[in-house]
């Protein structure tokens, strides 16, 4: 416990002086040197610490199952993935579904649709709610992942994870949000209830799009580290922290509509602090994952 608080103190210190996560980065590098990557340890690491940017795409690809645990196979598997990517991209060009003018995230959406056997007959189809989610996530992912092949694969697998692994959990998050907000600040929840805002909160933006388009990508990726590595519950605490951070503003608003509108467009400058506090709050309520030796 004392060791932990000491570590926390140091992390905070590094954060302040710009050396954040020096030791974390080293310990991740050790994990990544294994011939066969230990998925469980990588998960624990990502649950506990923010991933260093330079390793984020690699770790996400491994955790999402895009890359197998064996280093030796990575080149071969990426070769298959790249070919698959260009095959599908080319196919959409052949049938004139896309052109040079098609925005990249729409290209990703059509590729995903084609691969899922759900390509509509024409590009001017009405978007389904799940397409909107895909586009929002792809748009944020574009800012986080430089390589377009990686970006497509990660977006797809991230969305697939939401629809499979988290399918039963995500609908329960609004209830959990209420519960934790009540624990942290009962008055704030009462205010939301009094305004009738509880049912109109931007749950779709929070728990389906995972805050894509709500928080800047530089902060968002630290939350997605947790989502990718197995916890969607972090999303609840981000929502709670947003409410706590803008408490004064929210308490001053007295209609559900105004509250929802404000929460959908929160100021971006405090997002880094929101994420840090949300992670702390998550650890406080759900425990800090133990880094197994």
């Amino acid at each position: 416990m004392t060791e932990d608080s000491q570590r926390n103190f140091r992390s905070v210190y590094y954060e302040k002086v710009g050396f954040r996560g020096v030791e974390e980065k080293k310990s991740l590098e050790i994990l990544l040197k294994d011939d066969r990557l230990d998925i469980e340890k990588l998960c624990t690491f990502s649950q506990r610490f923010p991933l260093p940017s330079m390793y984020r795409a690699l770790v996400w690809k491994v955790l999402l199952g895009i890359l197998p645990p064996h280093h030796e196979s990575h080149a071969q598997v990426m070769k298959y993935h790249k070919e698959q990517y260009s095959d599908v991209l080319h196919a959409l060009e052949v049938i004139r579904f896309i052109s040079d003018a098609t925005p990249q995230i729409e290209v990703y959406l059509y590729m995903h649709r084609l691969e899922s056997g759900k390509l509509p007959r024409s590009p001017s189809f009405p978007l389904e709610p799940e397409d909107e989610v895909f586009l929002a996530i792809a748009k944020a992912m574009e800012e986080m992942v430089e390589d377009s092949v990686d970006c497509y694969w990660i977006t797809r697998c991230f969305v697939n994870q939401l629809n499979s692994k988290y399918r039963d959990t995500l609908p329960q998050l609004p209830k959990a949000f209420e519960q934790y907000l009540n624990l942290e600040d009962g008055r704030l929840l009462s205010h939301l209830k009094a305004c009738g805002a509880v049912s109109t909160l931007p749950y779709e933006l929070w728990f389906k799009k995972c805050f894509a388009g709500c928080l800047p990508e530089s902060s968002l990726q630290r939350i997605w580290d947790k989502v990718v590595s197995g916890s969607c519950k972090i999303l609840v605490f981000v929502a709670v922290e947003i409410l706590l951070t803008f408490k004064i503003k929210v308490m001053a608003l007295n209609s559900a509509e105004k509250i929802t509108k404000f929460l959908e467009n929160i100021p971006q400058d405090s997002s880094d602090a929101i994420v840090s506090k949300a992670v702390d709050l998550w650890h406080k309520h759900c425990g800090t994952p133990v880094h197994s030796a």
Partner: protein
Amino acid sequence: YLEDVKLQARGQLQAAESRYESQKKITQVFELEILDLYGKLEKDGLLRKLEEQKPEAAE
């Protein structure tokens, strides 16, 4: 160690299979597109015939 080799092989095989599966999906999409284009061509052909017949009918 044996399990390890098997696991590694499975990782590669999955990627290869997925590349094959998406190629299959592409074939299906192309098939539909071909049918669609033939449909359009026939409609076009029919329209042209109708247009060609109009002047004759007017004579």
